[in-house]
């Protein structure tokens, strides 16, 4: 478990050292004229593009569109994965009934669904939500099922002694018992949702961070591409931080 110790100056120095070194080397090479600007522009060029994108509002539009898609796809996936996951563990017959299909669908990567998604839902937002859903649903589902299966059998015995009905069993033993694992699934699911949204937007979109990447490439603007990548990275980290915080709030018993 993490210690509550206050992190000192030395920690933060070390924490930011590598990014600063990379920036300095990068800056040095481009200042010395060793980098081709059409392949890798100088750091200040990217900073300039960032300011420009903030000023004309494109940065927030693009990131906003992607974040919204991720949230929509994720919540849909969470709802389905959680419900099906619990049903599979509580009703063994339902498990047998669904197992083969789930096993076959699971290895198909989200990008493999893009062609079908576009045929079914067009190139609008719906097809992207679908791709994100596919990306997020399996890790959440698998971790939910795993979490329930790993709950110590002795608690189920306890439930029998106290004649707990199925609803109590689900509410008081299955869900809290599987919660740590479910939260792991959620973090993986959100990570996959980001991967999926970028992939989907790179193929057919007029907005979003994925669009920034494909647009930057067709305009031969590596600065836009790098800005898009940084946005994905930074927002991905922020979402993960948020989930870690949520996990701590939810699981306060250990």
């Amino acid at each position: 478990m993490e210690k509550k110790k206050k992190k000192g100056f030395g920690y933060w120095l070390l924490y930011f050292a590598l990014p600063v070194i990379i920036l300095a080397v990068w800056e040095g090479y481009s200042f010395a004229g060793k980098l081709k600007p059409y392949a890798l522009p100088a750091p200040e060029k990217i900073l300039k593009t960032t300011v420009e994108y903030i000023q004309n509002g494109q940065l927030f539009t693009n990131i906003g569109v992607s974040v919204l898609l991720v949230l929509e796809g994720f919540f849909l996936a969470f709802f389905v994965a959680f419900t099906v996951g619990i049903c599979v563990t509580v009703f063994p017959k339902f498990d047998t009934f669904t197992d083969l299909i789930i096993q076959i669908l699971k290895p198909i990567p989200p990008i493999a669904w893009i062609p079908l998604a576009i045929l079914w839902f067009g190139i609008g937002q719906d097809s992207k939500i679908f791709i994100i859903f596919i990306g997020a649903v399996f890790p959440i589902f698998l971790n939910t099922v795993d979490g329930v299966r790993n709950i110590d059998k002795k608690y189920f015995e306890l439930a029998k002694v106290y004649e707990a009905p199925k609803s109590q069993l689900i509410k008081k033993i299955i869900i809290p018992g599987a919660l740590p694992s479910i939260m792991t699934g959620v973090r993986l699911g959100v990570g996959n949702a980001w991967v999926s949204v970028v992939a989907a937007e790179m193929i057919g979109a007029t907005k979003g961070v994925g669009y920034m990447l494909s647009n930057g490439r067709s305009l031969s603007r590596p600065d836009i591409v790098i800005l898009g990548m940084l946005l994905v990275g930074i927002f991905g980290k922020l979402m993960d931080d948020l989930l870690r915080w949520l996990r701590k709030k939810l699981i306060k018993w250990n």
Partner: protein
Amino acid sequence: MGNIVEIKHLTKNFTDKEKNVKALDDINLEIKEGSFVSIIGGSGCGKSTMLRIIGGLETEYDGEVLVGGENVTAPSRDKGFIFQDHRLLPWLTVKENIRFSLPDSQKKNDELIKEYLSLVGLSNFENAYPKQLSGGMSQRVAIARALANKPKILLLDEPFGALDAITKVNLQEELLKIWKKENITMIIVTHDIDEAVYLGQKVVVMTPRPGRIKDIHTVNLGTVRVRTGELFTAARDEIYKEFFKESELPFSYSI
């Protein structure tokens, strides 16, 4: 009063992977309503198995097991079971752990929860999580949880086995007090001879491979139970002799 437990020709086999273990072999036992019975024996002699059968946690066996005159087919609230581990749900507070165990009609009865927590001396811990409790406190909560369901019989499987000697003695005292106050039949499984003698009015001695009842001792500690003195020593000696020959008695008593 009549017998609350009647066991007739109980035999239990465990079979897994072609291996067959005869855990219990032709057990016959009657337990009077309201009495306190200890079951003692070495590891693997089937004590837990017998208790689990009485509690309805194990339902496949040969022979007849009646609790309150009826065949046991499943666990139930009126057959309280205390496991060696306290088995509190780590994600629920002490209060919610007890609430979880209660029948629907009592789920909102905070008074009942408070009453039993105070019976085991833990009134101030109702909002604590199990990880904040010591082993002895956790086992107290487990006892309160069982008692709050007003069982007719309380089955305890080495409930104090994991506790230090002093905590153990305290909990034994409390258990005796509760037994006298609530008038519940109690059956305790233990491999601590002192514990068996101090708590039980009867001590059932079991032997392993196959699990059988070797002897049933009636303990007479007089009207006031004490852990010292002649009556206790005599009763304890008797049980020791079941396990050790005279010449190898582990210590002698010369005061």
